[in-house]
């Protein structure tokens, strides 16, 4: 049901974990009704220099988490904000129809982390 790219990102997730003293933290989802994803990132001169994810969810959710961190790493915040959920699914070579909703968290969590970073910087 999952293609090789999805499986690769699930079995060998990139950037899994959590950054100590992150510059931005984004958490989306609700454990009671669905999946949870937390993204932590470090930013230097508007560029994402380090990024980690933690995800409670199915294989599709973990693979999309992994992929979104790859897509965002090294990008400017402006570029990262333009990454959509659809971009993540596309970068994975597509997801099964019934799993498309699982990918919805990934970009949302990334954007939430960037917003958190900006909020901290402009008190």
């Amino acid at each position, binding site marked *: 049901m*999952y293609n090789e790219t999805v*499986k690769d990102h*699930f*079995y060998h*997730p990139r950037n*899994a*974990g959590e950054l100590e003293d992150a510059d931005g933290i984004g*958490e989306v989802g609700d*454990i*009671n*009704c*669905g*999946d*949870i*994803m*937390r993204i932590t990132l470090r930013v230097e001169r508007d560029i994402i220099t380090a990024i980690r*994810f*933690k*995800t*409670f*969810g*199915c*294989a599709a*959710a*973990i693979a999309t988490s992994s992929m979104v961190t790859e897509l965002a790493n090294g990008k400017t915040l402006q570029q990262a904000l333009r990454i959509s959920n659809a971009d993540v699914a596309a970068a994975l070579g597509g997801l099964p129809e*019934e799993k498309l*909703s*699982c990918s919805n968290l990934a970009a949302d969590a990334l954007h939430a982390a960037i917003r958190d970073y900006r909020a901290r910087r402009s008190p």
Partner: protein
Amino acid sequence: MKQIYLDHNATTPIHPEVLEAMLPFLRDHFGNPSSIHWAGRAVAGAIEQAREQVASLLGCRAAEIVFTSCGSEGDNLAIKGTVDALRGQGNHIITTEVEHPAVLETCRYLQERGCRVTFLPVDRRGALDLEQLESAITDQTILISVMWGNNETGNLFPLAEIGAIAARHKVCLHSDAVQAAGKLAIDVRAAGIDLLVLSGHKIGAPKGVGAVYIKNGTRLSPLLHGGHQERNRRAGTHNVASIVALGKACELAAAGLATYRQQVRRLRDRLEDGILATIPQVHLNGHPDRDLRLANTLNISFAGIEGESLLLNLDLHGIAASSGSACSSGSLDASHVLRAMGLESSLARSSVRFSLGAETTEEDIDHVLEVLPASVQRLREMSPVYKA
């Protein structure tokens, strides 16, 4: 890599003797048992022999067995057939919140069409309150439908006690025994059951065949109208080879019941004990009294990780298990069974079911116990909610 199949509640491999019994009916004896010529005669007897074999597993008479195409058809037939036949008499059904979708969705459909349905709750262990069941009965009640063994947790329901209640109130009693038949001793007569459903592919017969016990005298409308097959209770040309296979599987199950139970019970307990001893923060789903569960089933939640992701991790190691019932994978909701048992949604979504079979070995179990802790650990490290 060695493949370890621990998803027997989803489906089982065909037993070699069953395959051997059915092959001649795929290769040579192709006749339609309704035909009177040589080709029909060569198969008509085989159908009746299979009927005897199924009947003898259940403790009923052959004439009380109707062949169907699967467990789902059996459940639909039993429930819709009763509602249709007794429509002058009442329109209330009592069932439970933890039934298989074949029962639940059928009841929901009938509800939309004007039936009143009581879905009985269960407690945290998954057990029913029989007093509550009895007090739900009204003079409009025409059917009680309670499964024998739950496909997800393995929980067993006290059908004999429920049978006594149904008899006291003269209400028809249906039991979905798809998971129980062939795994424990069933005596439909002693239990006071009117309608009982089983499915071949859970007990070593192929997919696409099942049977319904219809107690002599039970009023039931057919679900499939048409030809005179099955004494007008189920139209459609007989699936001869698969019916022969189902008969053989029932015969084998009856003969091997004691050994099977002892064997899977020992291995299931080994797996259960092993997981509880080596992995922290796990939660057993189902009745804590192991005698009140199917001997082959273990359902367990691993806090902090989602069931499917653990499944795929196990799959990488050749281990096939399941999260929730096979029927609802592809759906994103937490298991309705575990939710009905009051399990928090996150734990419900962290559940994995291991269901053993006759061919499961001690090495299989030990291999799972070796692989599982690391898989759980790996996923917990990625989890935003797991706290060690």
